Every structure is written in structure tokens, then in C-alpha cells.
């Protein structure tokens, strides 16, 4: 009888110990927020609510926190609003997205120094001169669960993240998969191993086959809307579309140092009710940034047509994009008058509000002519404004079909159709001008509004009164 009682007590004790070791890890993850500061009051509310239920909530970003809203990206310290808001929401760590490099080396180092969360990226090594505090991994204690998080970023065709190469000088990058494998020791040290990835969904799935020791990949980069989470090769993968449409709340059950169950749900952020009011006030403060009233140049005479403003934009692309020629789709010039006097940052952002990036093409005069014709056809039969040249085009007055196009250089001579020119345009114009050309172009990673701002600042005074770059003949 005594033996039976003793055995029962032992079993009870064992059961009780096992129950004590069953713990839940809660993760709130976002990715590719792209400066959606307007969504932070709602994100703050979601984080507060979950934290009230789960005090050890881990909040993570899969990278690309910036680049998407001038209120953030053109702040005095670029991207400072996002860092402040992420600090307020209580983020613990972020991956490094390719757009984090849009801040360039010193800018990124500055942002990291202002962050209360960790910046994790195992496959980059900045030169010490930048004082950039990027860690390859970090172990977090979440209510007794040790969580090892490795950060990783995608490399593009040039072996660099997709941003302007000049912004990554003196930063070394390494193969993502081989790098991750070096951190397998975390499996022994941690209850949960998490890959905070800016690789994109396809690579997350591909890599999962070789990384069975990882429990979960919190992803980003491809803007893939995963419903909750998906199991691929035994690894749980989450990701959301961009700009905080949704975030993911993941629950991992850990027993005896091992993840035994995983589930995730998407939570809608954009356009939803309930906000953190303190964060709302901070967003309002950032939205009323007086820096947007800064005068870049003085317009010595008023602008009084779309063409005058379009010519100015096209000139800016040539001057600041260091090109020979340029073009700007007519539909992308958003107002037709500007009075004489100060031309401000806000004026430029109203003129060119689309966040289009400048694209560089090395194409012949003939290939350029073909692109301009396509652009005309696909931009509601409006001829694009041009820089570094003038365009004389003949259209049918009834059908508006383009019948003839002649391009002239600034010297008044016809453009050499065989010569290769460096042409700068915006990403929209290039996309709506598909032709069979040798060079499809290269995104410079610089938004065209930024080129216009630089141009105005460098000019100091501008006068485009009566300026034309197009001559239309109806015949």
C-alpha cells in the first residue's frame, strides 16, 4: 500500500513539474512598415492590449521600417519619426531591410543609436568608423523562455541589399544561408530560435529546408500576406503585406525547452478603430513638421502652365541625376501654377507626390524616341516633358495618334539616333514605356522629388516663364 502511495505521489510531482514547464511565448510582428506613421496610434493600441494580457510580449519588425512617406523620410534626421514611434510601441528588435540603407551609413548608425530596440543583421559587417551598433543575434528572456533571434537581410544581384550602392560603401555583406548556419549553436542555448528575416517569402521557404533547427521565421521583404502562419519543412513562417495593413500575433507553446505548438493570427491595423492617444499626438506633431515650409529656391516669375513646371522637373533630373537627357510623364505633373516667390519642400511634394524613384537608362536616341512614343500612348496621349532636348511631334488632330517625332539637342541640332545617352526618368514613366531596348534601366533608389528639391536648392533662383520643351504640330 505504501509503495502504491509513494508511486502516485511521484507521478503527481512529475506531472506538476511538467505543467510548470509549459509556457507560452507571444510575438507581435510587423514587416515592411515603410514609414506608415499614420498607423502607429492603432499599432500602439494593439501592442498595449496584448501586453496587458501577455506581459512578456515580444515585438519584432522584419525590416524596411522607413522609405514610403516624406513626413518620415525627409525629417531633419531622416526616419527619426519611425524610430521614435517604434520606441514608444515597445519594439524589441528589427531586422535590417534593404531600405534601411536609404539613410546611408551615417544616417543608419544615427538611427540605431536613437533606438531603444536592437538592430539585428548577421550577414553585414559595417566598418568600425561608422560606429553602427548592429548585432548578429540576441537572446531575449521572455518570462523564463530564452529566445535566440538571428537577423538576416537579402542581397540583390550585385551582392548588396537593393538600395543605392554608394550608401553601402565600407559595409561587408555575406551569403545569407551560410551565415545563418553559423548560429546553430543557439539551438543548444535557447528554448526558441527565431530568424528575423528580410529575405522574402520564397527564400524563407527555400532556406527552411536547410534550417530544421529554427522554430520560426518572422519574415519581410516580399510583402507577402500569409494567413496567420504557414509550416514549411517544419519551420513556421509569418509575413504581412506592407505599410501596416496587418500585423501577426503568434503564440508558441514551449514545453521542457521545446516548441510543441505554434499558431498565429493576423490583426488588421490600417483603417481600424481604437488608438493609443499619446501616440496619436506624437504622430500629429511629426505631421505638422515646419521643415516642410522651408524655402528651397525663389521663383523669380510665376509658373503658369503644366509645361513650365514639367520642364523644370525634367531639367532637375538631368542636373541632379547627372544625365544627358530626361523625360517626365505629363500626368505626373500635379499642378499648373505657382506664384512668384518661395518654392518650398511642401510645394515639391505636391508637385511630385508619388514617391516615384529615378531610373537611369543607357539607350540610343532611337530607343529613346520609341520610349517617348510609348509614354505618349500610355499616358492618355499626352507627350512627356523632356530635359536636355526639345521634342517636335506631329499628331493627327482627329485621333490624336502620334505620326512623327523629331528630337533636338540643346544646340538645336537633331539628336543622334545611334548615339547612346544617359537618360533619367521616373519609375512610372519607364514602366508605361515598354519597348524592345537593350537596357531596361536601373532604379537609382532616389525619389524624383528629392532630385527636384536638390535642383531648386542648387539653383537658388528659377525662372521658367514662357519656357517650352515641346512643339506640337497637328496635321
Amino acid at each position, binding site marked *: 500500500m505504501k509503495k502504491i502511495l509513494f508511486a502516485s505521489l511521484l507521478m503527481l510531482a512529475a506531472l506538476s513539474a511538467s505543467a510548470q514547464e509549459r509556457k507560452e511565448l507571444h510575438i507581435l510582428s510587423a514587416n515592411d512598415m515603410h514609414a506608415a506613421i499614420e498607423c502607429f496610434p492603432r499599432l500602439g493600441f494593439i501592442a498595449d492590449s496584448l501586453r496587458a494580457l501577455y506581459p512578456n510580449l515580444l515585438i519584432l519588425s522584419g525590416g524596411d521600417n522607413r522609405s514610403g512617406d516624406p513626413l518620415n523620410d525627409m525629417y531633419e534626421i531622416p526616419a527619426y519619426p519611425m524610430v521614435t514611434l517604434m520606441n514608444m510601441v515597445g519594439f524589441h528588435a528589427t531586422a535590417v531591410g534593404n531600405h534601411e540603407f536609404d539613410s546611408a551609413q551615417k544616417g543608419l548608425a544615427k538611427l540605431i543609436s536613437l533606438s531603444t530596440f536592437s538592430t539585428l543583421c548577421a550577414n553585414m559587417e559595417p566598418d568600425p568608423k561608422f560606429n553602427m551598433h548592429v548585432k548578429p543575434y540576441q537572446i531575449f528572456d521572455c518570462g523564463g523562455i530564452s529566445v535566440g533571434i538571428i537577423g538576416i537581410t537579402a542581397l540583390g544581384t550585385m551582392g548588396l541589399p537593393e538600395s543605392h550602392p554608394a550608401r553601402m560603401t565600407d559595409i561587408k555583406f555575406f551569403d545569407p544561408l551560410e551565415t545563418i548556419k553559423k548560429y546553430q549553436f543557439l539551438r543548444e542555448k535557447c528554448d526558441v530560435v527565431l530568424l528575423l528575416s528580410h529575405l522574402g*517569402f520564397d527564400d524563407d521557404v527555400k532556406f527552411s529546408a536547410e534550417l530544421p533547427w529554427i522554430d520560426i521565421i518572422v519574415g519581410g521583404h516580399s510583402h507577402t*500576406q500569409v494567413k496567420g502562419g504557414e509550416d514549411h519543412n517544419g519551420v513556421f513562417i509569418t509575413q504581412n503585406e506592407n505599410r501596416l495593413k496587418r500585423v501577426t500575433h503568434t503564440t508558441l507553446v514551449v514545453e521542457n525547452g521545446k516548441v510543441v505548438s505554434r499558431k498565429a493570427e493576423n490583426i488588421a491595423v490600417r483603417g481600424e478603430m481604437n488608438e493609443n492617444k499619446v501616440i496619436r499626438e506624437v504622430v500629429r506633431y511629426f505631421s505638422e513638421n515646419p521643415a516642410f515650409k522651408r524655402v528651397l529656391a525663389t521663383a523669380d516669375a510665376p509658373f503658369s502652365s503644366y509645361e513650365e513646371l514639367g520642364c523644370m522637373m525634367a531639367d532637375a533630373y538631368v542636373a541632379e541625376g547627372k544625365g544627358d537627357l530626361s523625360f517626365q510623364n505629363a500626368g505626373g505633373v500635379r499642378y499648373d501654377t505657382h506664384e512668384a516667390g518661395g518654392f518650398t519642400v511642401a510645394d515639391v511634394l505636391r508637385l511630385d507626390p508619388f514617391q516615384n524613384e529615378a531610373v537611369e537608362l543607357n539607350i540610343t536616341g532611337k530607343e529613346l524616341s520609341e520610349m517617348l512614343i510609348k509614354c505618349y*500612348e500610355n499616358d492618355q496621349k499626352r507627350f512627356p516633358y523632356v530635359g536636355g532636348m526639345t521634342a517636335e511631334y506631329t499628331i493627327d488632330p482627329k485621333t490624336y495618334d502620334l505620326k512623327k517625332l523629331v528630337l533636338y539637342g540643346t544646340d538645336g541640332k537633331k539628336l543622334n539616333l545611334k548615339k547612346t545617352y544617359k537618360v533619367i526618368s521616373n*519609375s*512610372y514613366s*519607364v*514602366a*508605361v514605356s515598354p519597348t524592345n531596348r537593350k537596357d531596361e534601366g536601373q532604379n537609382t533608389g532616389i525619389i524624383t522629388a528629392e532630385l527636384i528639391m536638390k535642383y531648386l536648392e542648387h539653383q537658388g533662383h528659377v525662372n521658367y516663364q514662357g519656357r517650352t520643351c515641346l512643339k506640337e504640330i497637328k496635321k
Partner: protein
Amino acid sequence: MKLKVNRKNIEVFEGAQVRHALLSYFAWKGLDVRLLEQLTVLDRWGHEIDLDAPASQHEMIKFKLPYKL
């Protein structure tokens, strides 16, 4: 950079977004580019993706219109 949009091969500039691949597709097909914002865009797995997604991340995409053209 090449990718497939509704099975058609499309070539776009390096660093393009899904939006630009769709714009090129619409331009080739002579479709009204204003329809772009109404599309549901799916990756090869059937996940929804947004127009700002990097084109380099998607070998093939397809889109659905909310109604028949």
C-alpha cells in the same frame, strides 16, 4: 529583370516594384492603367501581395480584376 505576369513574360528595370511590372503589362496589352489600384495581385503560392512589393522577389504573379473587362 524578367518575371511573368498572368503567364506573359515582362521585362522591367532593375529595382522595379510589382506595380511597374503590372504597368508594363497593361501598357503592352493596351489596358487602362487606372485599373491598377483595383487589382488583387497574387504570388505563385496564391498569397496576396501589394503593388509596392519588390518585383525581384516574384518570378511570377497573377492578378484578378474585381469585374470582367
